[in-house]
């Protein structure tokens, strides 16, 4: 019999009941909650007279609607009354049901996918869900983690389970080593460019290969975060020393004898050598260049030395029409060099790229330089209050501010523009977020997805540039 994949192991370890109709009941270890996708779930519980199954499995924080300025004002700092109601509703629900919440003024508040790992609330071997598609981020720790809808948030609150059907197994292998200046963000964008935005639909996607093994936990989180942009709800990386070192000493992490027992189990969380995957994709790490998206889907991506594509070269009529529409929306000409794209704003932040390493990489590029005068704004939004404090301890805030970037308070911010941080119509933004969909960062806004280093390079030049030319 063939060995098991990491996904097979995690699935088997959480399987409560296999039903005759092919569905299965899966136990959920951790649920993360935020203000946007939980109010209707709490309301559903209340209407049905149900209580949360296991309170301590849940951890909540407001992140999507929170302003990134004037944090000391707390909820009163939320100008939009509709946003404020949503954050207040989360507070009220967590207080009423007794769920641990890092409220807006708590230093531990931040983007759910940043604070889970930061607190050790994300542990290897867990099943983790959240009403947010970027829950795949947590798979970097060898967990089975994915986004769910609000009805399922209610289902997990009420039963600590999900009804699931097992997915297929996919391995994305990145061989060899990455070139200098090439980051986790470039790796995942290159993967999406290769397999397409639906390439992982129906699969649990494991990232492996030497290049992945060399990466830090934070880079692995960036990669797993965007597996959903390749269609895969679940992204995963096997546990190794890097994982275990990262978890050690965090508030929710075990210690003493429990730690030893946990580590012994975590060491088994990898695909067996003879495991069989339904699909395998390979990339050479050395071939991956800094990436920039030019269109309105994350698969519309190329190396920074590339050209905006010409729809005339696309044979498939539906794809050709998609390119024509994207170029029109983005205000770009076919065949123009990516480095000719002029920018209006830069956004460094989001659950993809707002951790301390991301901020260090960006700061290293802007240090001693100035934001280009043609730019209207360059924002740096740390992923949590603790990331912010760490960055300030290292003096990164000063480097950013001296260069002319704005140093803000933690939240989702301009990744989806539910708060006051947004693009104006027609504005081009170099963004470290995860989606370049039409209108995502503001009505009529034009998003280009890049790594933090590439966003920083764009900030100081006003257009895209290969960051390696600035730093090497």
């Amino acid at each position, binding site marked *: 019999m063939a060995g098991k994949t990491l996904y097979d192991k995690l699935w088997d370890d959480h399987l*409560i*009941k296999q*039903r005759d*109709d*092919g*569905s299965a*009941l899966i*136990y959920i270890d951790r649920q993360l909650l935020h203000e*946007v*996708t939980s109010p*209707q779930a709490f*309301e559903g519980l209340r209407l*049905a007279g149900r209580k949360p*199954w*296991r309170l*301590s499995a849940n951890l909540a924080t407001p992140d999507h*609607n929170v302003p990134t300025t004037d944090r000391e004002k707390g909820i009163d700092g939320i100008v939009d009354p*509709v946003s404020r*109601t*949503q954050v207040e*509703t989360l507070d009220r629900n967590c207080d009423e049901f007794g769920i641990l919440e890092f409220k807006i003024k708590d230093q531990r508040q931040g983007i759910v996918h940043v604070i889970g790992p930061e607190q050790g609330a994300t542990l290897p*071997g867990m099943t983790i869900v959240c*009403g947010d*598609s970027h829950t795949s981020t947590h798979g970097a720790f060898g967990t089975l983690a994915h*986004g*769910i*809808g*609000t009805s399922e948030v*209610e*289902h997990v609150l*009420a*039963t*600590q*389970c999900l*009804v699931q*059907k097992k997915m297929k197994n996919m391995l994305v292998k990145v061989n060899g080593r990455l070139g200098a200046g090439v980051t986790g963000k470039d790796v995942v964008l290159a993967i999406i460019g290769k397999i397409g935005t*639906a390439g992982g*639909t129906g699969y649990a996607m494991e990232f492996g290969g030497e290049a992945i093994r060399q990466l830090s936990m934070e880079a692995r989180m960036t990669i797993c975060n965007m597996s*959903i942009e390749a*269609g895969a*709800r679940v992204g995963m990386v096997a546990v190794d020393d890097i994982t275990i070192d990262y978890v050690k000493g965090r*508030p*929710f*992490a*075990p210690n003493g004898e*429990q730690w030893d*027992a*946990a580590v012994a189990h975590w060491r088994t969380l990898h695909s067996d050598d003879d495991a069989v995957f339904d699909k395998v994709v390979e990339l050479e790490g050395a071939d991956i260049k800094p990436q920039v998206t030019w269109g309105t*889907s994350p698969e519309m991506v190329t190396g920074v030395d590339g050209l905006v594509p010409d729809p005339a070269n696309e044979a498939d009529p539906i*794809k050709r029409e*998609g390119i024509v529409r994207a170029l029109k929306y983005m205000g770009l000409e076919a065949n123009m060099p990516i480095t000719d794209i002029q920018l209006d704003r830069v956004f460094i932040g989001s659950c993809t790229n707002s951790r301390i390493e991301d901020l260090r990489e960006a700061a290293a590029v802007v240090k001693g330089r100035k934001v280009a005068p043609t730019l209207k704004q360059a924002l740096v939004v740390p992923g949590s209050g603790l990331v912010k404090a760490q960055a300030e301890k290292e003096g990164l805030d000063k480097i950013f501010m001296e260069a002319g970037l704005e140093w803000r308070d933690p939240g989702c911010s301009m990744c*989806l523009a*539910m708060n006051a941080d947004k693009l104006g119509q027609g504005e081009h933004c170099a963004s470290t977020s995860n*989606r370049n*969909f*039409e*209108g*995502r960062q503001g*009505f*009529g806004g034009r998003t280009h997805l890049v790594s933090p280093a590439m966003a920083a390079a764009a900030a100081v030049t006003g257009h895209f540039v290969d960051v390696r030319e600035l730093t090497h």
Partner: protein
Amino acid sequence: MRAFTQHQGIVAPMDRSNVDTDMIIPKQFLKSIKRTGFGPNLFDELRYLDEGKPDQDCSQRPLNPDFILNQERYKSASVLLARDNFGCGSSREHAPWALDDFGFRVIIAPSFADIFYNNCFKNGLLPIVLEEKIVDQLFQEAEQAEGYQLTVDLAAKTVTTPGGQSFGFDVDDFRRHCLLNGLDDIGVTLEDAELIKDFEANRRESAPWLFNVAN
């Protein structure tokens, strides 16, 4: 949940692949704490020429005349015909809520994004996967004949054209059962409460660190 057994309705063909959930319902409308009222803002950025705001009277807004749902013949559509990877991106259940609130009951496409597909079933909305060449044929027929309707039978798992041509489709037995009977799946799961308790107790024993609270 509302049960779904059979449905016959007008078909709106939306000829565009990778329709994401941001497009289905933009973020400013996710600030609502209700499940209803999203219909007027379905496809907001495609449907109107101005920028939509929450709690606005949409009847006064300038419509995009090129958008499919603004054409008289599709205004009462309840079957959405779509292209590959419909519903990709954000997990927001507001997307099926908005489609439902507008009046859609069925979405047919060659493929759907996983989370969206799953969310539909929780809301009495039926997503149907048909082969691309069948979808192509339905696009042609729907565009040619005004008032074109399809009949969907979930029990028989068929989609039938006005000409009487019938196509079978696949759907998981569990999802089909819940939808046909309008079942609350939390109630179904709680029938196994004892099993869940036993599983949890074993887990607490074998992996106690998973039950820790913060140090």
